[in-house]
């Protein structure tokens, strides 16, 4: 068994008396696209926050390829090869697209490549706040992709995108895994996207890990159906 690219051990986070995350273990092998699903309030975003270093008080351990990064700040984790996108679009509204990507690339290149991959080329030199919502979502993703991170945490990247845009996004993610072997942890509400591109899926429910398996196993699991799919399926 090889060391997972991303691993969380016994992750917990409490808000006052409420446990948003309770003793969750997760291990994602290199080059895998892992889906993270669960009903609202299951702790998906909290888990992404804990893994990426955004959460305030939490307990447990976060490892990247065996190295303990639990005490690393977000910027140190980024330098270690971990990048993330945000559920609520987080970009630099007053910088131009290229300007902010060049900043995010640090001294490495690859700006043109990412601009092309995410169809962000030709958006001009105006401030990013003037872009359309879809463009801003892709810019948020581009800020995470630039610099070829080894681990990518994506918090609902397809939120608010059209069907076609979501499908493009799914294809892009698969290409990235093939071309540079990135490891992806993906929170997504669009089940079509999740089931079509994820190698395995982790299901969270009320802050705990309910199950983990291939898309088929998850789809067939009676627990998952009652906790989640049963209520949200039409």
């Amino acid at each position, binding site marked *: 068994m090889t060391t997972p690219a991303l691993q969380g051990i016994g992750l917990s986070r409490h808000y006052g008396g409420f446990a948003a995350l309770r003793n969750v273990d997760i291990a994602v092998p290199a080059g895998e696209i892992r889906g993270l699903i669960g009903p609202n309030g299951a702790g998906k975003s909290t888990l992404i926050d804990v893994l*990426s270093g*955004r959460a305030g008080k939490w307990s447990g351990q976060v490892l990247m390829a065996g190295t303990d990064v639990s005490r690393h*700040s*977000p*910027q140190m984790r*980024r*330098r270690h090869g971990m*990048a*993330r996108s*945000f559920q609520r679009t*987080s*970009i*630099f*509204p*007053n*910088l131009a697209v290229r*300007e*902010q990507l*060049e*900043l*995010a690339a*640090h001294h490495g290149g690859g700006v*043109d490549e990412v601009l092309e991959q995410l169809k962000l*080329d030709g958006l001009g030199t105006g401030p990013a706040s003037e872009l359309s919502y879809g463009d801003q979502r892709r810019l948020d993703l581009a*800020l995470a992709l*630039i*610099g070829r991170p080894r681990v990518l945490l994506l918090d609902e990247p397809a939120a608010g995108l059209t069907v076609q845009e979501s499908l493009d996004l799914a294809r892009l993610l698969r290409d990235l895994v093939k071309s540079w072997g990135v490891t992806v942890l993906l929170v997504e509400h669009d089940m079509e996207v999740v089931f079509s591109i994820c190698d395995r899926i982790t299901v969270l429910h009320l802050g705990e890990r309910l199950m983990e398996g291939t898309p088929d196993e998850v789809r067939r699991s009676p627990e998952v159906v009652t906790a989640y799919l049963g209520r949200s399926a039409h």
Partner: protein
Amino acid sequence: MSVQAATSLPAPAARPAAIAFGIALAAAVVGIVLPLLVASPVTLSLATQGLTNAILATSVGFLIRQSGFVSFGHATFFGMGAYVTGLLLKHTGLALEAILPLAIALPAALAFVVGLVVVRVSGVAFSMLTLAVAQVFYEIVVKWRDFAGGDDGLSVTLPPRVFGLPTTLFQEPGDMFRIVWVTLVVILFLLFLLARSRFGRLCFAIKDNEERARFIGYRTLMPRALVFAISAAIGSIGGVLFVLYNGFVSPDVLHWTMSGSALVMAIIGGAEFLIGPAIGAVVFLAAKDKLGDITEHWQAIIGFTLILVTVRWPHGLVGTIWHWIRRRGRGGRA
């Protein structure tokens, strides 16, 4: 198309710097010639005082522009520049050549250390804290009668020469006008380069979205403390020139109304623009001179102007003109 864009990229990046250098050079020349055209030493003297204030306003505006933080206590750094120069001249045997860099480095170092703490709080809390820092510093100087002269202030006797030049230059309105003017131009040019540098871009990014800046791998505390320190250094340069010119400094320059006026100058001129605060300072002091009769109520006038400008013309004088020109330009093309 994209090839063309890629190859032509470096050129526009280099050209504005060259243009700015040309403008700076021209401005410096104008400043050097100007005293020849102004006969009245009183006017020159007023203008020289005004320019030291313009340097302070520039430092306040730079902080707002580059980091979004509004300082209500920048007189501290102006006053520190002046007091460190005066106190070291009076109480130590240090050469003025050594004192001048110290008088800029010490306030900058203090700002850096304080900055590491205060930039962690929100913008509004930052403003509150800078006011508190300034007040504390003011009271220390007022109470420190034996050492700093207390309310009576501090007279400064300059050695006859510094860097091989006679120090009488500093107290002759025409010459000092040139020195302060050129210093201001150099500061503005350096700040222009800073804003265009990678560090400047990073500071804009942090101002825009601090959290995102951390998640693309940047430390955000250090750059903000550094901007605060640079801003303090500029303010202290104003203070150093002030004390060299006047040969005297009193706690008045540390008072919070001094910080307040500097802020008002920056806002009136337009803090979003590099040159705005300096223009604001000139307009502000010219108005103060013209309104001489009612300066008894100067403080209320400042307050009223501050309210009026923040609410009606939030981009300030330079910003309002700039937006007006841009709108006309756009209208013409469309």
